[in-house]
């Protein structure tokens, strides 16, 4: 048995298997194909949640994505707890466990429901007017209490073991919504042969055909027709059918984001299945067939569990075979609720009465209801509902006042009319237009290549809908490039409507009994507890824009984003302002249409795919040696190579000493490398770097500085001239991509007349720096075809030849101040050549060193690191590199920027060395420098420490700093105030080791 309220003869789940589930620990039976909501209702459970502010008991309002009340926490296991799941959307599976939210200690007895009693105090925006005294209490008392009370579900507290996937797709026609309109549109488009994607948020296609028992298409029941038509579409090679797939965002140029719920409905999803799949579809034409959403009636206590939308009750009956009560009342302002009453009555449910606001409506459904013996009350209003945890009665009164009559009921079905779902249309930047006759906003002006069909377009009736959708589908296909739509119709034919239902109209705003003269709680927005009087109050307080009303009352800002409440709120505001609805205007519809998991949006970009981890060819060797790595941009670089028992400082001290006394090997592969080739290569280099290049001889190298046009240092690196028309340029590791882009920009757009081309060769070459007095001895035995003598290969030169039998570009250069080389070899040979050099190095006492030692060694020599010793506000002169600026050059990028008044003014910050008075004290990088340490705060800071290290080679600490007028302060004493005392420093030159530079040839 799957619930006492299951009607054996009704619904489409008759043969379905039983599925056990639990709610708040209580076990129930449902059937496969149920939603959690239908299964709960089948078991007579209406109380499923508590509202946000007043903690009022709430039941199921709807049967779809618009649900504001029935939000639950689904718990698959400890790591898979999902908050705020709409029970009306969650499909049942055997073993599903759900808990109610936002209540304590239990759903039926919630302590915070005291808020409801105090609700007169908690009027709209009350928090803006209080909690201000005493001042400190906001942070310590009020806010923590408010935060505790707020929120709905509970965030997961463990990493999510599920995975999510994504897919880009392109199609000619994308149809959003798989009701009658969407299916007809897809059929018409697909028959022309163009590519079609049809998506619907439900597990089953059909939209309102799921509950419209009166629809007959092509001789069969409407729902059956929908299933057959979708099966036919799915079998076509040019069509992709996506169920459980919600289009959540409509972006520029027909780019639509959809989420497919792949496995949340499965008892035990396979490991390979993603939980959800993000579809990002670019369509030539988009067809919006998103239907309409029923509105509730706004009357006192309209939120009591058991009160729901009439269409929802009908869906529960006709799709799921569930009666939402045994003795139901109906409150309506349009025809559609009659159909619900009729279906329920025919299924054996007692319909206590229909209360219709309208005075004397006529029509077949009314006649039929009357014929079935249902009591109908025209011109009357339900002025209040009775009951608390479940509705127990409805009190009826003539709408213009008069005697009250209370009718016992256990459910109320209500319908104020249907609101076209223009969300996606509006997201596409289309402008809606208000139809005064039907009181609906419908698509007006289109901004993209899309078209709306069916109920979302304000089209009423199945016949008209199918006509419109089928024609529009064919046209969309034609517009998207179908050969000739008319000749292809032989394949299929427009679906023929044999029987249909039709309704429109209804009412907006508060119903009689909840008008301006009352103080009843007639809810407009259920989840956020916004009542009609809250909206009126907002207007009285000067909120004249609907956006202000929305923000002040929070109407429409709950997890349902106002799908049922926006139009009512607008109507009440308009009435209070005394303005027509379109003048007050609609609030903006924003993506997403329904909430989308972060996981789906992130999809693959988690863990190893969050961001690429770049490793050099030599990385495996360093890893095997126990190197510690640091992140530099996306690269992992060997930071230091600790031996057993060494901490970072000991390892670095050892590495630094070894390099200066013997030799060291360093993996410099991450440095950016660009090959500049062409007859105008030197001319181009002249323009992009501050230095002169024309006269650099092939085989020689030069340290180059690149500026931005504003004159500030952008990048630097050693450049080797391989041939008159070929340069091998190196850049900083982090700068490689932007330097390449910068160079391409100038080459393509400012200097396109130059015959030169740029190729990134960063990853072509692994680079092994061999530095130290023994460096040549280590390399030489492995090299072929290169004269390694100082005469033939002086400092700052480059040769091509072979090493270990493979090609090399061998640079004689140094970033340590020692005799040094950088061995470039094709990347796949990098590790083998490194190993060969390492083996050779072992004969000479060489060490491997990492980036930290590299930093120390270069700082001992006063070599700068762009991005550390410079920060985007430093000129070559500031950095002491004026010598690298070609004074005779007529042009280079940055030449004019350098001349600006502030860049040539006195008192700029200049890079200098600092020595602490106590040589053992190592300054902190980023520490600030002052002249007078005794001044009060705020102090006048004149610079900061950019680089600072313990130098084992110097036997003391060393530092570089940017200091105002630094070069005029040589020998001065300055101060670095730290939290635990002031450090005295002396301003010095930037070279701390081997000032004459003799060791370059040592």
């Amino acid at each position, binding site marked *: 048995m799957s619930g006492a309220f299951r009607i054996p003869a009704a619904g489409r789940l008759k043969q379905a298997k039983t599925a056990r589930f639990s709610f708040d620990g209580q076990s129930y039976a449902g059937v496969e194909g149920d939603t959690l909501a239908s299964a709960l209702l089948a078991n007579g459970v209406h109380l499923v949640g508590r509202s946000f502010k007043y903690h009022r008991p709430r039941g199921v309002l709807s049967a779809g994505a618009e649900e504001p009340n029935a939000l639950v926490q689904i718990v698959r296991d400890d790591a898979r707890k999902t908050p705020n799941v709409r029970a009306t959307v969650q499909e049942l599976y055997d073993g599903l466990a759900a808990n109610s939210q936002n209540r304590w200690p239990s759903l039926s007895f919630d302590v915070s429901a005291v808020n409801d009693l105090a609700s007169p105090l908690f009027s709209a925006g009350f928090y803006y007017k209080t909690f201000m005294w005493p001042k400190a209490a906001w942070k310590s008392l009020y806010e923590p209490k408010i935060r505790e009370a707020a929120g709905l579900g509970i965030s997961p507290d463990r990493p999510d073991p599920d995975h999510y996937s994504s897919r*880009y797709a392109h199609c000619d026609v994308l149809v959003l919504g798989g009701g009658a309109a969407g299916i007809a549109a897809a059929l018409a488009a697909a028959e022309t042969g163009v590519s079609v994607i049809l998506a619907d948020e439900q597990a089953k296609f059909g939209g309102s055909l799921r509950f419209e028992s009166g629809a007959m298409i092509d001789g069969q029941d409407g729902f059956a027709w929908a299933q057959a038509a979708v099966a036919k579409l799915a079998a076509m090679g040019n069509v992709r059918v996506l169920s459980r797939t919600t289009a959540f965002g409509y*972006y*520029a*140029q027909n*780019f639509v984001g959809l989420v497919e719920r792949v496995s949340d409905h499965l008892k035990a999803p396979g490991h390979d299945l993603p939980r959800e799949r993000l579809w*990002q579809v*670019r369509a030539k034409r988009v067809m919006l067939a998103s239907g309409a959403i029923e509105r509730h009636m706004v009357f006192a206590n309209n939120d009591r569990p058991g009160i729901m939308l009439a269409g929802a009750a009908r869906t529960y009956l006709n799709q799921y075979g569930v009666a939402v009560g045994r003795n139901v009342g109906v409150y309506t302002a349009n025809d559609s609720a009659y159909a619900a009453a009729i279906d329920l009555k025919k299924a054996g449910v007692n319909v206590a009465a229909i209360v219709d606001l309208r005075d004397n409506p006529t029509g077949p459904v009314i006649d039929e209801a009357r014929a079935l013996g249902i009591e109908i009350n025209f011109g009357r209003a339900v002025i209040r509902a009775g009951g608390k945890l479940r509705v127990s009665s409805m009190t009826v009164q003539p709408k213009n006042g008069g005697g009250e009559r209370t009718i016992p009921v256990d459910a109320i079905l209500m319908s104020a009319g249907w609101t076209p779902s223009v969300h996606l249309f509006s997201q596409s*930047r289309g402008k809606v237009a208000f139809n005064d006759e039907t009181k609906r906003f419908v698509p007006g002006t289109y*901004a993209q290549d899309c078209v709306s069909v069916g109920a979302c377009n304000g089209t009423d009736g199945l016949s008209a809908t199918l006509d419109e959708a089928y024609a529009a589908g064919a046209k969309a296909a034609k517009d998207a490039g179908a050969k000739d739509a008319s000749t292809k119709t032989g394949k299929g034919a427009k679906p023929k409507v044999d029987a249909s239902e039709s309704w429109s109209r209804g009412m907006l705003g508060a119903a009689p009994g909840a008008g301006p003269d009352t103080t009843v709680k007639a809810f407009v927005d259920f989840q956020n507890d916004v009542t009609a009087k809250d909206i009126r109050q907002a207007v009285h307080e000067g909120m004249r824009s609907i956006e202000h009303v929305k923000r002040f009352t929070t109407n429409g800002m709950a997890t349902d984003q106002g799908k049922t409440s926006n139009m009512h709120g607008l109507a009440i505001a308009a009435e209070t302002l005394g303005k027509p609805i379109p003048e007050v205007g609609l609030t903006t519809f924003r993506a997403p249409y329904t909430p989308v998991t972060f996981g789906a949006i992130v999809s693959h970009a988690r863990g190893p795919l969050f961001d690429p981890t770049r490793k050099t060819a030599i990385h495996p060797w360093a890893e095997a040696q126990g190197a510690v790595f640091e992140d530099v941009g996306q690269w992992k670089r060997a930071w230091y190579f600790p031996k057993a028992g060494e901490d970072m400082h000991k390892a670095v001290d050892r590495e630094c000493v070894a390099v200066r006394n013997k030799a060291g090997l360093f993996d410099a592969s991450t440095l950016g490398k660009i090959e500049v080739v062409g007859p105008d290569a030197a001319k181009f280099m002249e323009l992009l770097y501050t230095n002169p290049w024309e006269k650099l001889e092939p085989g020689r190298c030069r340290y180059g500085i690149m500026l931005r*046009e*504003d004159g500030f240092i952008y990048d630097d690196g050693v450049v080797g001239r391989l041939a008159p028309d070929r340069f091998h340029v190196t850049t900083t590791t982090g700068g490689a991509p932007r330097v390449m*882009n910068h160079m*391409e*920009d100038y080459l*393509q*757009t*400012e200097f*396109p007349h130059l015959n030169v081309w740029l190729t990134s060769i960063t990853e072509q070459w692994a680079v092994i720096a061999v530095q130290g007095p023994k460096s040549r001895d280590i390399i030489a035995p492995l090299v072929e075809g290169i004269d390694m003598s100082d005469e033939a290969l002086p400092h700052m030169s480059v040769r091509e030849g072979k090493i270990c039998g493979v090609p090399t570009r061998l640079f004689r250069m140094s970033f340590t101040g020692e005799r040094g080389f950088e061995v470039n070899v094709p990347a796949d040979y990098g590790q083998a050549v490194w190993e060969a050099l390492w083996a050779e190095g072992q004969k000479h006492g060489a060490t491997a060193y990492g980036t930290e030692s590299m930093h120390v060694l270069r700082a001992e020599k006063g070599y700068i690191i762009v991005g550390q010793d410079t920060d985007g506000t430093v000129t070559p002169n500031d950095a002491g590199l004026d010598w690298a600026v070609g004074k005779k050059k*007529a*042009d280079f990028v940055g*030449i*004019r*920027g350098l*001349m*600006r*008044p502030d860049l040539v003014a006195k008192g700029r910050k200049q890079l200098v060395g600092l020595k602490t008075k106590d040589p053992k004290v190592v300054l902190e990088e980023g520490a600030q420098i002052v002249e007078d340490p005794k001044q009060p705060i705020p102090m006048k800071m004149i610079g900061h420490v950019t680089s600072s290290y313990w130098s084992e080679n110097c036997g003391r600490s060393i530092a570089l700093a940017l200091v105002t007028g630094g070069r005029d302060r040589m020998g001065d004493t300055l101060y670095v105030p730290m939290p635990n005392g002031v450090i005295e420093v002396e301003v010095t030159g930037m070279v701390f080791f081997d000032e004459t530079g003799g060791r370059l040839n040592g």
Partner: protein
Amino acid sequence: MLLIRCPYCEEERPELEFRNAGEAHIARSANMAGESDDDFEKFFFIRSNPKGIIYERWRHMHGCARFFNAVRDTVTDKFVMTYKAGEPKPSKLPKNSNEVVAK
């Protein structure tokens, strides 16, 4: 994500392949060193930032790698046209463009 027609690839490609490169038709002076401070400020800092039609540069970074120019409406983000680098600023825009024409 925008869809951008690359004039070199001769087709529309997803924005992820492109990088915007700022306002177009701001020529770098042939005599850069001789520019005044005001001219340099105009060249490097001042931008039209139009609400309406913008002439801008893009690079098909992860496609053909070419820089090119585009005309786009900054209110709707719709492209009016794209054209190759070095081609003159169009004196007339195609008919489908917004009437908000740049000064």
